[in-house]
């Protein structure tokens, strides 16, 4: 008896065993097959992309050899290592440093100073960013 006939009929014990094992095996096999296939594809994809990106990095290695120094609006960074904090709490400095690091890559930039930005037109920088984000056309 095929599975569709079993579904339509009242189930005997044998039918119950049959449909149970069929569903278990099919479900197990299909779910694992699809997800294993995805694993293989993602691994291959990851390798292809990293190889391609490594190649492009090599091509632009000369440019990357020179670390970019990002100077923010700090008026006078006192020393090379110490960040001018402008009264900003250490946690905020850590967050900004992490964001800069994440954007430009580890060790490629040096934060010379951090300064609170003034508000323009009655709005803070965050407020302005919000307005721009919400009014940006499709």
């Amino acid at each position: 008896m095929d599975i569709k006939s079993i579904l339509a009929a009242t189930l005997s014990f044998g039918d119950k065993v049959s449909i149970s094992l069929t569903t278990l095996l099919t479900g197990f096999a299909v779910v694992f097959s699809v997800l294993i296939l995805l694993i293989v594809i993602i691994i291959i994809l990851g390798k292809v992309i990293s190889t391609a990106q490594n190649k492009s990095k090599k091509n632009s290695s000369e440019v990357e050899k020179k670390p970019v120094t990002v100077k923010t609006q700090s008026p006078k960074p006192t020393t090379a290592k110490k960040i001018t904090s402008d009264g900003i709490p250490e946690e905020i400095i850590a967050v900004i440093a992490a964001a800069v690091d994440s954007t430009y890559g580890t060790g490629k930039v040096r934060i010379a100073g951090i300064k609170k930005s003034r508000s323009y037109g009655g709005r803070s920088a965050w407020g302005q960013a919000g307005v721009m984000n919400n009014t940006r056309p499709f």
Partner: protein
Amino acid sequence: MEIINGFFEGVTGLLQSSGFVSISWQNYVMIGISFVLLYLAIGKEYEPLILLPLAFGMLLVNLCPGIMGAPTTEFVPEAEYLKTHDVTTQSVQYAVTVIDGQRFYSVPEYGGLLYYLYQGVKMGIYPPLIFLGIGAMTDFGPLIANPKSFILGAAAQIGIFITFIGAIFLGFKSKEAGAIGIIGGADGPTAIFVTTKLAPDLLGPIAVAAYSYMALVPIIQPPIMKLVTTKKERMIKMEQLRPVSKLEKIIFPIVVTVLVALLLPDAAPLVGMLMLGNLMKESGVVDRIAKTAQNELMNIVTIFLGTTVGATAKGAVFLQLGTIKIIVLGLIAFCFGTLFGVLFAKLMSVLDHGKTNPLIGSAGVSAVPMAARVSQKVGQLDNPTNYLLMHAMGPNVAGVIGSAVAAGVLISLLG
């Protein structure tokens, strides 16, 4: 005297149509259950986003069953209708039906509010829309960085099929058993989607069971996780995941959609919308739409879905032996899902010489991100410096894809 009689008639009519007279004891029990769920949502904050509207929908439908009432058509004899209506000035003209030579106006009676909102559940619209929002909120980075996590997402689905067998032998029909088994996927929208396709009559108990167990993940999973792992295994620190490029994150949803939709068309609505949401997020070119999917759309659909699914739990339908069986089977499904996830993670740990912490396996049962948080929390009990969260997010999001694939298998096989 007439005024007093009219007054008494009015009050009597109101009392007779009130809930005190019209609702049964089953409704009162369900009202009590809805209060418990409201307490869990508000007092304990267990999945409040879904549990609160769900409990309130349950409360509403048991107080006023008509709120889920389907529309009907009343045949009013033409002569009687014309006594109270002037059809020449009436803006709406109703169809006239002739039965045995007598003419009747087909006057529609509209359904209850929740009946109309429920159509999104019935037609399988809300669950994929919820998946769109989930996709727009999900970072598949940990899964792409460690694709082996997919195995754990698949292993945790075994509970679905084992529970299917249990349900069959407990006397449920095949389609009903499939819908009950999917509770083990620990994914509310998937459970609702499958149930509407296979056994719409069981939607109330299955949805309530699925969301209740999802809310109870922090209570259900830890004992199973501890039972099958040693302290040494739980203390394993996993290596930091590799960074994932933006290009990989963009290609991932496209690849998954193409593959799953080709192999399992029945899973396409869920996986397709999940991946569309994710592509909107990762591409970075449609920020506004992605944010709408994450916030406004997701919130609106959650309100509609939660309230109307709760409203399917009418006393007379819900308070049956079958519901208790479903609740028990759902728990079994959930426990087996967790168990197999952890066992496969243990196997993986043996194969990679102790690089995988078996605790991340339990996160394979979807329930994003609660299940991953449980892995993190249980891991930190034995090793406070252990951070498993990002490692557990891999199997966790793989579980979402896995349960959608399992749903596709069940619909295709049993539907």
